[in-house]
């Protein structure tokens, strides 16, 4: 009797300690719930530039890298049979700056500061702190994420681009120097050495973007087939792009089950070019009249005489006419696509300073794009001791702050050529193709609905772009990851789930000084 009692009690106790885990009929974690279709996701390698690296807020830092689109995708891939081990060359901290032999060579990330008294946002400021990521302390590459901030298309195949010894002279890239497998390695070679089973390639942005962000203060190298002669802000020749891009696609696709190529967005979709209004100079009526008085002689005598002398056309003279009025005004700018008339003006008897001032001067117009960094310059004094040296009114805004219509046209022409190459190679090789250009245009014009609101390109508040105005936020990268996942599902008959972009953050709030 007692024995049976113990059996019953023991049985009850045992039942109590048996775990009764709740289980779904079809758990999402089960193999086969999500599928990769014809794609083999066991070894995904991402190749590209800062966008692929997860660069944001003007820097590369750990949490940004964790929210890179390749890393977001890799986590979703893991649900569909992909590897759980997607490696990235993580930085050493969340400050983002870089040291080269102890000297800082890349600035820390931007954060959004606010006035401690009023609580009003002040705008992006560079986060204080001494970075700990040293270029010469190499991370052991190669990595699944082969995104190299700053890389242009031809850099990916350039030996020595990761040679730490070449960083100081600008011959090598400090980010790639951290994890290049050798001083002679190429980004493409390191990527291919991983034997990717699947790849994404997003390169070519910097081939136009550095020209654009520099306000066109570079050279359009179309026609020059030797990239070793290019300056950092030049536009890459489309044939050079096509050649190296084709080489990259062939090399990556050779052993892979598939891949996705992503094209180049328009600069006009990026807040760096759309945030600062061109009409940025507020003047009241008396001031406008006074300033106009300063330019009266220039408008009514200098310009007509230049036309009469055949130095400029009457159209150019009209474009160079300066006129202010009460309200918001276009600033005066230097435009290096105008005829440089300084020598002529000197020969006509103008003093050198005035001649140089007027040499390539005109007033901006609605076709110009003023870059984000101009915001801290416009309306300030070029000479702090001269109250009349207001930039945009008396002193022209420098060329590097304005992307003129002519310069935009060069960018658009080159990027259209690159994009034709990209989509052409995608279809020729049966690869997936993501039209990031159209997608970003949609973010910029109308926005993308998500469960927490609207994703737009509005600087600071739109959610898509980080505080450098060029690179996406984690939410922007998550949106990008979804675009690529959708394309993989379509092209390779896969069923990889999207992420909810509302779960991804945007900008980081922080004041450097405690309040």
């Amino acid at each position, binding site marked *: 009797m007692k024995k049976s009692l113990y059996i019953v*009690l023991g049985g009850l106790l045992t039942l109590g300690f048996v775990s009764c885990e709740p289980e779904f009929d079809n758990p999402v974690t089960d193999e086969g719930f999500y599928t990769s279709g014809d794609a083999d996701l066991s070894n995904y390698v991402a190749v590209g530039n800062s966008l692929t690296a997860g660069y944001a807020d003007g820097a590369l830092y750990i949490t940004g890298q964790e929210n890179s689109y390749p890393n977001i995708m890799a986590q979703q891939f893991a649900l569909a049979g992909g590897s759980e081990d997607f490696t990235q060359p993580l930085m050493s901290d969340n400050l983002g700056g870089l040291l080269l032999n102890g000297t800082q060579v890349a600035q820390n990330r931007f954060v959004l500061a606010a006035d401690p008294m009023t609580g009003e946002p002040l705008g992006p400021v560079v986060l204080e702190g001494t970075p700990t990521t040293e270029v010469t302390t190499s991370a052991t590459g190669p990595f699944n994420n082969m995104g190299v901030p700053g890389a242009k298309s031809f850099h990916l195949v350039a030996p020595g681009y990761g040679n730490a010894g070449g960083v100081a002279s600008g011959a090598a890239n400090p980010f790639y120097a951290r994890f290049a497998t050798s001083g002679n390695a190429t980004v493409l070679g390191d990527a291919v050495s991983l034997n990717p089973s699947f790849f994404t390639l997003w390169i070519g942005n910097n081939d136009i973007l550095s020209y654009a962000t520099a306000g066109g203060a570079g050279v359009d190298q179309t026609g020059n087939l030797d990239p070793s002669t290019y300056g950092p802000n030049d536009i890459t020749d489309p044939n050079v792009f096509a050649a190296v891009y084709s080489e990259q696609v062939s090399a990556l696709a050779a052993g892979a089950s598939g891949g996705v190529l992503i094209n180049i967005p328009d600069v006009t979709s990026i807040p760096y070019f759309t945030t600062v209004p061109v009409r940025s100079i507020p003047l009241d009526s008396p001031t406008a009249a006074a300033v106009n008085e300063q330019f009266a002689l220039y408008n009514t005598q200098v310009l007509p005489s230049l036309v009469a002398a055949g130095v400029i056309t009457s159209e150019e003279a009209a474009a160079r006419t300066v006129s202010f009025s009460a309200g918001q005004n276009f600033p005066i700018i230097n435009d290096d696509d105008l005829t440089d008339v300084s020598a002529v003006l000197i020969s006509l008897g103008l003093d050198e300073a005035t001649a140089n001032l007027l040499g390539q001067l005109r007033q901006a117009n609605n076709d110009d794009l003023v870059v984000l960094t101009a915001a801290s310059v416009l309306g300030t004094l070029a000479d702090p001791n001269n109250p009349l040296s207001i930039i945009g009114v008396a002193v022209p805004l420098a060329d590097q702050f304005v992307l003129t219509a002519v310069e935009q046209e060069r960018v658009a022409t080159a990027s259209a050529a690159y994009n034709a190459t990209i989509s052409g190679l995608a279809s020729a090789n049966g690869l997936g193709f993501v039209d990031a250009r159209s997608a970003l245009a949609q973010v910029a014009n109308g926005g993308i609905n998500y469960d*927490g609101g609207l994703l737009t390109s509005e600087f600071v508040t739109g959610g898509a772009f980080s505080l450098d105005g060029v690179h996406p936020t984690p939410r922007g990268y998550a949106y990008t990851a979804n675009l690529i996942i959708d394309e993989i599902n379509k092209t390779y008959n896969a069923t990889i*789930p999207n992420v909810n972009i509302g779960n991804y953050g945007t900008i980081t709030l922080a004041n450097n000084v405690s309040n």
Partner: protein
Amino acid sequence: MKKLLLLSVFALAAAVTYAGGYRVSLQGNKSLAMGHTGVAIVNSSESVFFNPAGLVYLENKLSITGGAFGIFSDVAYQNTQTGASAQTDSPVGTPFYLYGSYQATDWLAFGLGVYTPYGSTVEYEDDWAGSHLVNNIDLAAIFIQPTVSLKLSEYFSVGGGPIYVTGSVNFNRNLNRTLTDLDGNRSEVTVDATGVTNWGWTVGAMFRPTENLTIGANYRSEIILDAEDGDADFENIPNSPLTPFADTTFNASLPLPAEMTVGLSYEFCDKWLFAFDFNRAFWDVYDSLDIDWADENIPDSVNPRNYKNASTYRFGLQYDATKMFTLRAGYYFDESPVTEGFFAPETPRNDSNGYTAGLTVNISDHLQIDASFLYLHFDEVNASYEGYTENGQVVPFEGTYKSSAFAPGLGLTYKM
């Protein structure tokens, strides 16, 4: 801009889980074994809780019974749209009870009960998909109830008493879906309140028209736990005037709803007893959980719950197998008080079916061992919580939930 950020940053949830909201129906091993019936059963001092009117019919001068349960309860979550999944790793809950009754005269009995009818412990993995609603929660409430039972006739008795409640709550969640500090640590808040007390009451009646039939009714009042000056601990908050969060205190109210039970028991074939209870829990008092921060810079947290009144149907059977063994079994259907669109992961309760069994071993004339177990079955349910907002826009938290619960219990009864 500032306002926008503030709005986007807040909407707090706090509270609990298990058994019809956060009601934990485990108030006695004998009763639980019979589907947690008892409003019309006279066999132990468990009646202090189930129906004080029954105490006066107990045969023994003194009857003391006590015990505890181990709740093994977990919840799994998944979202097939995103592939997100989570499973709680909740510690074992241990509700307990201790009841005593003393027969003062033929028509008067006194009783005392200490029991834990509300509580919950749910622990999700930190920063899981629903971490903006809850990371973990621990709610406990102890009821202390002095009781008097009066026999008005051979057929009819009444009973009741005041209830003193002391409760505590500890709750952690992330402030929203995205706010972090510079190192990416999610901004979170922990609210903690202990020693929250209040009074309530219970009253019951019992009618025994024949030797075999007993009819009972019991009502337990609503008790509101008003947490005052609880501690709110904000962590991983960015250093920015745009985030006004700083450690502070808070006031909040958590209702323990009133419950009414009617039922009957019927003895047949000498050794058999059948019991049926119908519970009605008045959950509609749980309309919204509002947290009022002492720091006025932090917007109050308003969290709609919109609970509805819910019923439970309980059936139990008892068989006196031998002088030594009494066997019991039961079943109940427990209707969830959660309404559509307000399925919050801290109380992930859909309708459930409870299967119970147990036995009493008569060690001697004075001592019994009571054992029971409960298996609570939940169907998979697709549900959403639509009380969370960002930028003034409702952001539903959707997914599939599957709960499981298993509760073995053990107790002792002493009588003389």
